[in-house]
């Protein structure tokens, strides 16, 4: 037999043609973008005006002796960390049992499954600072309300991440535990929990990072932490102090993130 020779002309394959639906969707998206841009007052000149704004001069020089004075920035920054720690421990602690109820693999029954999913979706649909503002109104200004708000927020994020991990877990240990006659709770704690626990710890660290960032801004609505200082200085137009604070916050956040990422890499 001969090799299959190419007979006749080699034709270039036909380029796939775009369907009418593509143009419809594209023009709808473009139209919505233009409309939305008009609604928010989009102007290209802003990009230029921002750079030439005389206000930037107010950002310099940074008053380091004010920034590094213990009561001004470092005290509230410590409070910020305390909020994040409390919120992470409470939120992630509560998330452990709820996540198991929210996974197809380990849920006790369908009613609990759909009910917990629906409630957590609504909780997650309320933005984090709305929770903070509501709780500040309900239980008073300060870090206490902030810790509550962030706990709710961490719970909502954690159950979403962790229940999806449980969904994807190996179901054979669970089956073995059930076949050996285990009831629901022991079967789950011995069959599934050990396989997903490293992921749980990794997510908890991730939520801690999120909480550190979220707790920085809690103070803007009166819920304690370093955001309160940012808000006060903004009202006095002391942008030089704000810049100094931002530099410190930035350094600390990056440092924590590096540590957390390093630990997470070893875990998973």
């Amino acid at each position, binding site marked *: 037999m001969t090799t299959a020779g190419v007979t006749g002309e080699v034709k270039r394959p036909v380029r796939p043609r775009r369907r009418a639906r593509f143009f419809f969707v594209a023009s709808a998206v473009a139209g*919505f*973008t233009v409309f*939305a*841009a008009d*609604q*928010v*007052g*989009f*102007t290209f000149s*802003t990009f230029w*005006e*921002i750079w030439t704004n005389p*206000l930037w001069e107010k950002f310099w020089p940074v008053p380091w002796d004010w920034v590094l004075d213990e009561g001004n920035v470092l005290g509230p920054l*410590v*409070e910020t960390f*305390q*909020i994040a*720690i*409390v919120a992470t*421990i409470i939120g992630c602690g509560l998330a452990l049992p709820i996540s198991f109820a929210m996974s*197809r693999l380990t849920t006790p029954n369908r009613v609990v499954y*759909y009910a917990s*999913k629906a409630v*957590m*979706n*609504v909780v997650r*649909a*309320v*933005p*984090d*600072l*709305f929770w903070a*503002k*509501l709780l500040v*109104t*309900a*239980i008073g200004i*300060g*870090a*206490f309300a902030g*810790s*509550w708000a962030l706990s709710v927020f961490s719970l909502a994020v954690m159950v*979403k991440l962790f229940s*999806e991990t449980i*969904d994807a877990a190996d179901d054979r240990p669970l089956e073995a535990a059930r076949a050996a006659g285990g009831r629901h709770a022991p079967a789950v704690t011995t069959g599934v929990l050990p396989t997903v626990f490293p992921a749980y710890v990794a997510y908890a660290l991730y939520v801690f990072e999120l909480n550190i960032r*979220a707790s920085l*801004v809690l103070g*803007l*609505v009166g819920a304690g932490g370093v*955001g309160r200082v*940012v*808000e006060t200085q*903004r009202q006095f*137009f002391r*942008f030089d102090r*704000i810049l100094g604070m*931002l530099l410190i916050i*930035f350094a600390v*956040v*990056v440092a924590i993130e590096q540590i957390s990422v390093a630990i997470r890499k070893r875990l998973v």
Partner: protein
Amino acid sequence: MSAPALDRPTTRPSRPNHKIQRFATVLLFGVALGWSITGLDITLSRLASAPSDAWGVFSLMFPPDFATEFERGVLGKVFESVYIAWIGTTIAAVLSLPLAFLAATNVAPMWIRVPTRQLFNAIRAVPELIVAVVLLGVTGLGPWAGALAIGLHSVGTLGKLSTEAIESIDAGPLEAVEACGGRWASGMRWGVLPQVLPTITSYWLFRFEINVRASAVLGMIGAGGVGAELVALLNFRDFDGVGAVLIVTVVVVVIIDTVSAGVRRRIIAGTTPDRRGAATIDDLLGTSLNR
């Protein structure tokens, strides 16, 4: 043939001993929690009264006063938040896509890759509310400052995710373009972009969902949208109105999440005509597996 006889007694394997590690972990968490709680001035009496205080306020929100709120134009405010989020996401998408090509290990040289990645990290470290606080000082109050703040902040996360998408491509098409003598830009356009665009588009949509919440929050510090309305009502202790605003916000956010999740599923996984209804319910409840 019979089963092979065991020549040694079967013993249960001994349980691994983690006592010291467990003790250390519990101690660490205990100390951290204790230190934080004392620092935050959390006392037992406050802890005991907080749930009832919170419940008291939440029960005041019912029945929510929809009529007054719709008259005050709450829907317009919620939509303004959505517009802010959309424009912010568009700005971030336009800026982050080219930058992602400069940050990916497989397509960019070292000298441009490292600074671009550091830029993404730096942007991600500053929360959008802080960006907005600074921008509001420069541009003045209004939704445009909010959109800009969201756009600048989202460049960090979108850039990082897009970079990772580009790094995980199949190298074949890119090599084919190079073998045909294509330039770097041609390789990106025909070898990389068609592979990553579906994934990156779904990241954009996902970021839009997050940004809707973020822009609602930005309103609280004067950047336009529903946040300003919520703060005003809370300051006047108009809890019926607060209830209405919250419910309208949640409904709009859930609708956007559902539609966006559906579109993302369609982009990544394609249609499954027989299960379309069930999949939409999954999107609504967040129960679909490939979100």
